[in-house]
């Protein structure tokens, strides 16, 4: 279907007018009119003509009415494969629809039939290609924006239109891509897969597969541990069996018994060998004895020669000893005599020394007594003077005791007295005073005392003055002027005086003076005493009592004052003593020599006598020679016997070595068995413990559990593998289906798109049935984020592609653009014009625009809107 002319009557700005647009060509028809010239009115009226029932009363129709209201009439002359027709509709008043064959002038259809005819002409199943192919003013994208119900409804309608078209071309999309069923299945696959595995297809922690794998790991570790224990147990059981066999093996016992018997036999042999060895030893001993006997005889022969020489030496010794005895005795007698003389001399010298010492002692005593007498006199004098000073001291201290008031105490008293005076002066100065001047004889009295005339009488307390003949006056001093200060001070003064024991101030001053003087006297007395008796009189008195009272100058009785001095006597005594010692030493030495000589003589005599006595029992030389011959023969015999025995001796070392070897083997065998028993005991314990633990059964149990767990984990792994295979296959199939589904529109769209974006690819959204992303080289952009111009251009190209699809369906529907391409720049708009021109070769395109200069480049037919007043449509 192609539109050739459009006529409107009483539509919007054409109130009461007829507007006509004729001369619409096959290809591009461009209607360039200024704003408010009614281009959009034509667009909307044409939409109503084709898609709104003439009986309807919709807002869209009412929007076509002019302010003056009234019926709206729209007509279009169209050309279809069957001819040229005029479609007319009157809306909102005297509603009517008519289709007239322009060639014959016959009405083809009216009312409902006319609507049906129109629907067929534009393709009833296309559900509004106008929305799909016609672009209203201001709609720069793929559909109306906004979220209102009408926009949503329009979007849905457009989507359905696209889907309808695509389905007509490539089949139902749900049928192609699987639709919601595919979505449901893929969601189920994803959910099942997600429950088991992570994105990287590893087992999900906490998922059934993850739990199964974890259990497998745990059980494997447990199985390995138990396996180790069971292997150890098995080894222990085998080892114990081996050990028991070994210990119970009768052959081992038999071997040990044979070895024991052999050891016994060797022991017997060894005993015999030892006996033989003993005999050899005895023979050796006999040989040694014979040799010893021979040696003894030889020794005795030699001894005999030595004894003869010895007898000679003994006789010589005896003689020498006798001579020494005689000589020593002579010398001893001489030295004894010299000692006696020296002893007498020493006794005399000692007596002389004693006398000299007695005389010297007596003289010393006399000197001591004289010194004592002198000291006594001195001490007596000191004590006498000291007694006088002590009397003065006592007197001074008595004075102090009676006059205790010190200068400081007196100062306090005097200070108090001064304060009293000062207080009284202050009191009097501030006190009320009375001065009486008498004119007569009468005299005023206070407390009976007459008041002196013209003399100020201070009043310190309430005072009653008697006025003879008049009465009395009581004067009261002002408050505050009291006697309190002086009273207190007076009381303190009285207290101080009382404490000092003085009646008044004068007495106090006298006492203080006496006190000072007494202190001076006391100090003087103490200084004198210290000078006289620094250590006190008691010490002097004790010294005095200790002094001797004997009279000196009395010579000692029996002493010779003219005798030698003690020093001389001591020298003589020392000399005598030294001589005595020398004499004693000589005497003792000579006595010792004499004793030694005597002893030597006696020994020599004894030895000689003894030798001579022994000589009688000694063997003769002949006997000794005979003995030596006999002993030599014995030695020869013994040597032979010993040699024979040595030659016949058995191999004791070899027997011992063999015995030792066997004993060692037996010992090793016994130790080996002991070790085996020990090991057996340990194994019993180990096996018992493991048996109590039931490790074999636990291992079997764990193996079974592991088998189950592994099978379970394998099932989950297989399930994951299955789900992944299924997911991949579904995704691949759906992707391919979508590609195939959109292939027709992409085939139409891409050449157009290439005019704007060379090499660009588009991805279609299966939900909106519209391009969703554009790929230019490596850059992929969402359509939504492109500029307004680019979006507008792609939207128009998409419409053109859909229009081409309609055309290929054999359903020619014009593309109508109302003020489109408002956002396109100069370069792009030219390219878009080229695209439109290319499409227009087999597609009618009607373009309304107010931009006459910009659209000059579009070319095409350019009819004008004709407006006539009140003319009918036809």
């Amino acid at each position: 279907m192609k539109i050739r002319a459009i006529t409107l009557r009483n539509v919007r700005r054409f109130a009461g007018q007829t507007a006509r647009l004729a001369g619409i060509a096959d290809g591009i028809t461009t209607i360039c009119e200024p704003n408010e010239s009614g281009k959009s009115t034509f667009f909307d009226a044409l939409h109503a003509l084709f898609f709104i029932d003439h009986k309807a009363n919709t807002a869209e129709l009412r929007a076509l009415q002019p302010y003056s209201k009234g019926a709206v009439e729209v007509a279009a002359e169209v050309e279809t494969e069957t001819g040229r027709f005029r479609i007319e509709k009157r809306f909102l008043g005297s509603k009517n629809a008519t289709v007239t064959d322009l060639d014959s002038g016959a009405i083809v259809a009216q009312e409902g039939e006319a609507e049906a005819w129109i629907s067929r002409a534009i393709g009833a199943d296309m559900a509004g290609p106008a929305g799909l192919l016609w672009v209203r003013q201001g709609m720069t994208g793929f559909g109306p924006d906004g979220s209102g119900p009408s926009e949503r409804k329009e979007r849905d309608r457009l989507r359905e239109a696209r889907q309808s078209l695509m389905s007509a071309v490539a089949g139902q999309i749900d049928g192609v891509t699987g639709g919601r069923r595919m979505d449901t299945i893929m969601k189920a696959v994803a959910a099942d897969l997600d429950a088991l595995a992570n994105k990287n297809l590893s087992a999900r922690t906490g998922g059934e597969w993850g739990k199964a794998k974890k259990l497998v790991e745990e059980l494997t570790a447990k199985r390995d541990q138990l396996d180790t224990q069971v292997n150890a147990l098995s080894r222990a059981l085998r080892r114990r069996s081996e050990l028991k066999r070994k210990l119970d093996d009768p052959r081992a016992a038999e071997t040990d018994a044979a070895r024991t018997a052999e050891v016994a036999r060797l022991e017997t042999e060894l005993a015999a060998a030892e006996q033989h060895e003993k005999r050899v030893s005895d023979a050796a001993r006999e040989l040694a004895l014979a040799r010893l006997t021979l040696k003894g005889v030889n020794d005795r022969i030699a001894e005999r020669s030595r004894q003869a020489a010895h007898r000679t030496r003994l006789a010589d010794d005896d003689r020498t000893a006798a001579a020494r005895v005689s000589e020593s005795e002579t010398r001893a007698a001489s030295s004894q005599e010299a000692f006696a003389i020296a002893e007498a001399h020493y006794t005399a010298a000692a007596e002389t020394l004693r006398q000299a010492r007695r005389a010297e002692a007596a003289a010393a005593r006399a000197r001591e007594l004289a010194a004592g007498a002198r000291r006594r006199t001195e001490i007596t004098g000191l004590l006498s003077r000291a007694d006088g000073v002590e009397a003065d001291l006592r007197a001074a201290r008595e004075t102090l005791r009676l006059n205790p008031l010190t200068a400081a105490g007196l100062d306090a008293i005097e200070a108090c007295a001064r304060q009293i005076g000062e207080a009284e002066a202050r009191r009097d100065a501030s006190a009320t005073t009375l001065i009486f001047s008498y004119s007569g004889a009468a005299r005023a009295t206070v407390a009976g005392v007459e008041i002196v005339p013209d003399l100020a009488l201070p009043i310190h307390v309430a005072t009653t003055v008697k006025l003879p003949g008049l009465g009395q006056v009581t004067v009261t001093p002002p408050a505050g002027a009291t006697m309190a200060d002086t009273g207190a001070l007076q009381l303190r003064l009285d207290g101080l005086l009382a404490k000092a024991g003085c009646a008044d101030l004068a007495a106090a001053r006298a006492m203080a003076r006496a006190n000072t003087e007494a202190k001076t006297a006391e100090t003087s007395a103490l200084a004198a005493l210290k000078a006289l008796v620094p250590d006190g009189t008691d010490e002097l008195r004790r010294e005095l009592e200790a002094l001797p009272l004997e009279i000196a100058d009395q010579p000692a009785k029996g002493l010779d004052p003219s005798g030698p001095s003690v020093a001389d006597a001591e020298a003589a005594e020392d000399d005598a003593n030294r001589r005595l010692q020398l004499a004693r030493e000589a005497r003792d030495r000579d006595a010792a020599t004499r004793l030694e000589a005597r002893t030597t003589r006696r020994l020599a005599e004894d030895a000689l006598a003894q030798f001579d006595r022994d000589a009688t029992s000694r063997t003769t030389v002949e006997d000794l020679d005979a003995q030596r011959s006999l002993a030599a023969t014995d030695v020869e015999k013994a040597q032979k016997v010993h040699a024979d025995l040595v030659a016949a001796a058995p191999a004791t070392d070899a027997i011992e070595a063999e015995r030792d070897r066997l004993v060692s083997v037996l010992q090793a065998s016994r130790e080996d068995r002991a070790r085996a028993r020990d090991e057996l005991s340990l194994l019993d314990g180990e096996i018992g413990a493991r048996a109590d633990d039931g490790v074999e059964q636990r291992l079997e149990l764990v193996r079974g559990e592991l088998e189950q767990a592994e099978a379970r984990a394998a099932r989950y792994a297989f399930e994951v593998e299955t789900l992944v295979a299924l997911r991949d296959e579904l995704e691949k199939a759906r992707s391919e289906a979508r590609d195939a589904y959109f292939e027709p529109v992409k085939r139409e769209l891409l050449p157009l798109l290439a005019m704007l974006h060379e090499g660009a690819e588009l991805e279609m959204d299966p939900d909106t049935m519209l391009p969703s992303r554009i790929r230019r080289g490596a850059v992929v952009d969402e359509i939504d984020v492109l500029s307004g111009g680019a979006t507008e251009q792609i939207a128009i190209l998409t419409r053109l592609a859909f229009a081409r699809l309609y055309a290929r369906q054999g359903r020619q529907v014009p593309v109508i653009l109302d003020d489109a391409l408002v956002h396109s720049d100069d370069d792009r708009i030219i390219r878009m014009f080229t695209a439109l021109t290319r499409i227009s070769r087999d597609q009618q395109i009607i373009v309304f625009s107010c931009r006459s200069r910009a659209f000059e480049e579009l070319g095409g037919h350019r009819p004008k809107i004709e407006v006539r007043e009140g003319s009918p449509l036809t």
Partner: protein
Amino acid sequence: MFSFIHSSDLHLGKPFGRFGEDLRVRLREARHQKISRLATEARRTGASHVLLAGDTFDAETPPPQILRQAIRAFAEEKDIIWVLLPGNHDSLLATELWARFEKERPENVVLALQEGATELAPGVELLAAPCPVRHAGRDLTEWMDRAETRHGALRLGLAHGPIQGFSEEDAPRDIIAPDRAERARLDYLALGDWHGRLAVSPKCHYPGAPEADSFKHGRTSCALHVVLTASGAAPNVTEIETGELSWIGLDLDFRPGDDPRKRLEAALPAAAGRRDTLVRLAARGRLSLAERASLDHAIVDLADDFGSFEVDLDRLDLDHETADLDEIDMRGGALRTAAARLLAGAEDMDADAETRRVRKAALARLYSYALAARG
């Protein structure tokens, strides 16, 4: 005549760690209860002895309370003589176990700890072959061929080990000669180790564990009542059911068009016994996505009825049906594309098995999501 109960592999104290705590306790307790159950059966059948052919205990060193409680339980059944043989799990190497047992051994318990023949009862010689270690590396019954017993006495062999390579832990050298009973002129060879019931020969039997412990042995657990009438005569062997909990291994082969829920419910026991039943479902074959979803829902609905319900759907492949993909997305859109790609990946034989498994699971998951999304 000599009559006895033959059992083995009680595995007292087995922990069953791969199950939940409640079930573990029940499984362990069921084992312990077998002592009184065997005693009851012995009295009922007139048997004087119960022979336990090894692995009475699960470990060489069971926990003390397990051992003590077992001893008390054996002692409680004082009119029954119990013969315990060390097996590979409780071999003679478990010296601690047997020393402790010996120390507290009740009078009515015989511990066959020595290899050799002893008189078990008048006219009955027991030829016991205790396991010396977990893996002896030799046929422990070989000596029985040469073992001398009194003339006319019944020769009763008691051993633990495999007769072929079917044991859980055996090695070829440990294998007991299957014809040992004949070679050693035994009147009966009571074996343990194999947890399922197996009659090796008329005179050689495995009773299996009296209480099952795995899905390996499909049959009901039992003990054997054995009557030996005379030396050289064939024994009379009767199975006695002893199992308390059932272990059911379901191997279901699904085909497109199956109703998985119905098939599963049909294969499972009645509701009354489900609490005492442990189930391992191994599904294979192919199911459409819808059928697979139905199976998944059925499993979820039924699993909690049972003591345990293990599921292995790895070998269950998806059957490509347009209707399944239509359930996901019939308009040929992206969902359909994804589903188709997952399906292609699941069936891409150039991809490794794990990748195919993941794609298959993803497709099943997509189907479930699509159903849920459809509401």
